[in-house]
């Protein structure tokens, strides 16, 4: 006999169009009560839009189709409506007020009232209970800004739980977490499941998904491709990827045709840096060298100091105090006082936060491509616009950036294409050493592969690349040699041959240099 499935949520034939684009077409999405349901898809596949429809950000009437929640068709007109029914969504960018305490944040927006005033005693007691549920053992009167990202996320979940959430939606919850925090969070999600909370998780990290999901739904180009029950069929990464991109990618890391590694061309020696804001040393005696034509990986967990290393060398815009050390390019000692000086010397830095400090989103591809090297396009006073267009078109083609023209605003591009523009602008600066900071974060599998292939091509042409990444497989798959960082110290150096996930992890969680037995 067939059991009637109990669905907490059914989204039926959801179609949502934006001016000029059909973001969702006829999407069907069913979530069983009490399950962990993972939603995957390339960037721009429609995951976020679907969740915005569900939570009422795109209000009733702006889409077609039905949202059936707990057996009833819902007409959400805003987040307040869906929250009232027990649906909570936690975004990648956390919505906490950093200057307020944990307990104030947990009950922010639904304060516990006592007549006309807030009952703070009750608030603190209740906040402690909610924190216990998410296994966060900290003083609730601490300011949120004093917590790490992982703990902040837990506070967000506690906040959702305090609203008596039945359906919890997590949008890439582990994107900015280290391995420990990620594992902790996934455990928590499982525990919430046992307490009867249904969870929808959007994620790019397939390993996590396979570890946790009861059902996996794949979206592609605004349509549901398939829904897989992990208990009924064997689901593998390759299978998910195939559904996501509609093709098999048998080798995620393209092989380099020929390795052509030359002499050392870039060196950081005994580099120690103090962050005056935090009042502590963030980098201690860092030593790194890069050969011509080599890809050097820098792996480390969040907060290991990788981005700080890049920023302090690349013109030191955060204003750190460099207490010792030197940088050498082609054997010559240099100290860059500004990014401009670093660029001139042949260094380029693709930042990890392309929206925050990488691109000017309100400007077009042409503007963003040429900005690093306008000198080359300027004769006399004026910019040579014809040359500029040629350059922008050249790099658009070279990077295979998908956009109608170079006059497209960068803010309207998908994450992968934005990243291509960001890399293009740095290639136009014609660097000798290219630093890539989390080059594939938040971008889809297809674009990742293109970026990897490009990296190979660039080093074959004689460029040197430093790749900072927290994704282990990527660092292992791409690097000729890699350094591991932890707490501001280089804890190890490995060649591609000797590196393994276990060895790297061991170094990444150590706070002292690790010597491995050979």
């Amino acid at each position, binding site marked *: 006999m067939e059991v009637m499935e109990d669905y907490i949520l059914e989204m039926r034939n959801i179609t949502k169009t934006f001016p000029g684009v059909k973001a969702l077409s006829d999407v069907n999405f069913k979530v069983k009560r009490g399950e962990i349901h993972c939603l995957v898809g390339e960037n721009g596949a429609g995951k976020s839009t679907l969740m915005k429809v569900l939570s009422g950000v795109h209000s009733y009437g702006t889409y077609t189709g039905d949202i059936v929640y707990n057996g009833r068709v819902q007409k959400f007109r805003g987040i307040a409506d869906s929250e009232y029914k027990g649906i909570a969504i936690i975004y990648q960018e956390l919505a906490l007020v950093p200057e307020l305490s944990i307990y104030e944040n947990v009950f922010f927006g639904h304060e516990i009232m006592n007549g006309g005033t807030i009952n703070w005693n009750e608030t603190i007691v209740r906040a402690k209970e909610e924190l216990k549920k998410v296994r966060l053992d900290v003083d609730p009167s601490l300011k949120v800004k004093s917590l790490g990202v992982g703990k902040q996320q837990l506070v967000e979940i506690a906040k959702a739980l305090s609203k008596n959430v039945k359906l919890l939606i997590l949008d890439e919850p582990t994107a900015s977490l280290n391995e420990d925090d990620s594992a902790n969070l996934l455990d928590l999600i499982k525990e919430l499941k046992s307490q009867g909370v249904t969870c929808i998780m959007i994620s790019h990290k397939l390993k996590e998904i396979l570890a946790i999901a009861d059902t996996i739904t794949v979206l592609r180009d605004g349509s549901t491709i398939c829904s897989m029950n992990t208990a009924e069929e064997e689901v593998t990464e390759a299978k998910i990827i195939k559904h996501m991109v509609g093709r098999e990618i048998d080798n995620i890391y393209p092989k380099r045709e020929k390795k052509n590694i030359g002499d050392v061309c870039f060196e950081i020696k005994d580099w120690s840096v103090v962050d005056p804001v935090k009042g502590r040393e963030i980098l201690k005696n860092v030593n790194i060298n890069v050969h011509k034509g080599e890809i050097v990986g820098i792996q480390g967990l969040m907060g290991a100091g990788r981005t700080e290393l890049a920023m302090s060398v690349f013109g030191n815009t955060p204003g750190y105090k460099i207490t010792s050390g030197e940088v050498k390019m082609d054997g010559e000692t240099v100290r860059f006082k500004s990014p401009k000086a670093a660029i*001139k010397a042949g260094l380029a830095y693709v930042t990890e936060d392309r929206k925050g400090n990488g691109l*000017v989103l*309100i400007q077009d591809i042409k*503007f963003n491509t040429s*900005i690093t090297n306008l*000198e080359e396009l300027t004769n006399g*006073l004026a910019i040579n*616009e014809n040359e500029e*267009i040629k350059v922008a078109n050249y790099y658009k083609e070279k990077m295979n950036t998908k956009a109608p*023209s170079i006059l497209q605003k960068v803010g309207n591009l998908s994450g992968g294409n934005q990243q291509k523009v960001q890399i293009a602008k740095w290639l136009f600066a014609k660097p000798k050493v290219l630093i890539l900071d989390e080059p594939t974060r938040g971008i889809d599998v297809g674009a990742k592969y293109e970026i990897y292939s490009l990296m190979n091509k660039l080093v074959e042409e004689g460029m040197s690349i430093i790749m900072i990444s927290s994704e282990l497989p990527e660092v292992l798959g791409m690097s000729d040699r890699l350094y591991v960082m932890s707490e501001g110290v280089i804890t190890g150096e490995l060649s591609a041959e000797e590196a393994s996930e276990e060895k790297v992890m061991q170094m990444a969680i150590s706070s002292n240099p690790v010597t491995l037995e050979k």
Partner: protein
Amino acid sequence: MNLGKELGGLVKKNIRDYMMYIALVIIMIIFQIFTHGGFLQARNITNLINQAGYVAILAIGMTLILILKHIDLSVGYVAGFCGAIAAILMTQHGVNEWLAILIVLAVGLAIGMYQGLLVTRLGVPAFVTTLAGMFIFRGLLNISLQKTGTIIVPNKVFNALSNGYIFDLPFAPEGIHLVTLVIGVVAVVLLWISQIKARINRKKYDFKVVSLPIFIGGLILASAVIMLIIITLARYQGIPWTAVIVGVVLIIYNFILNKTKLGRYIYGIGGNDQAAELSGVNVKMVTLFAFASMSVLAALSGILYTSRLQSATPTAGTAFEMDAIASSYIGGVAVSGGIGRVTNTIIGALVIVSLTNGMNLMGVDISYQYVVKGIIFIIAVAFDVISRKKAK
């Protein structure tokens, strides 16, 4: 039929820009009716240009500042103070008018450097720095005119800057200003050449262009408006010097913003200052330039105002900053920074000055004028915010 559709699409897409022109036309029509045809008389149009001059000059500089997400509240009293210095130099120290102008512009530069360095090197917010500047230069203006009170400037050449007209050829016929006409025709020809060249270029690179009838229609409309103004002016006394000065400043700033590295950097910083800095832009230098240029333009504005009144008064400069900031925003500078054009700012300045001028003609009390201007200003900005949200 297709043409109508394209036109509709264009209006929809550029509603923000068109709105400004539509508002200007509506305001002009209303005043034309209420002043029984006085508003669009040649004499009043000339008047309007002379009044708009010192506001437009300030608004051009302000556009750069606002694109960079800063503000300069001191411009009014800097203008007033600089105007007073010009008058004092010429009347009390016998300085030649051209030298006086140069000295005053240098004073403006010094003021701009002082404020710009505070903002960029010490990190004092522009709002605070220039609010302090408002106090300081208002005080200095009063101090400099304390002994004398209002100074009458009898210098003919100086006063011509904001009251005079460009020369005409000796053989020009009676009743028509020949040089003005020639300039008008040249401007129209240059407009056609540059637009056609730009269109050919865009086509060469496969960029979207509007259809030919709309392109030509737009050019004919623009040419007609230019020629209408030119003919009106030519039948009166010709192009005022103020228009020439504003025109030159406008061309220079439009060139800087659209054609030079500096302009790119200004838009880049306004759009995302961190990205600009990491791309090798010297954010501090560019910001310093904007503040320095702002105060130089404020000095020029003060010169025009003193010339217009033919005297320096202790109340000169009052509320200029309000008109300048409103002009920039009405002209389409984004409140969130990073977007704006000096050519549109000029239209914004025309809107603001038309309101002043029209209401003056109608005899509306100055207090009501402020209220009306404030309402138009907030409608324009609210409309801007809404249309940008929709575009997202």
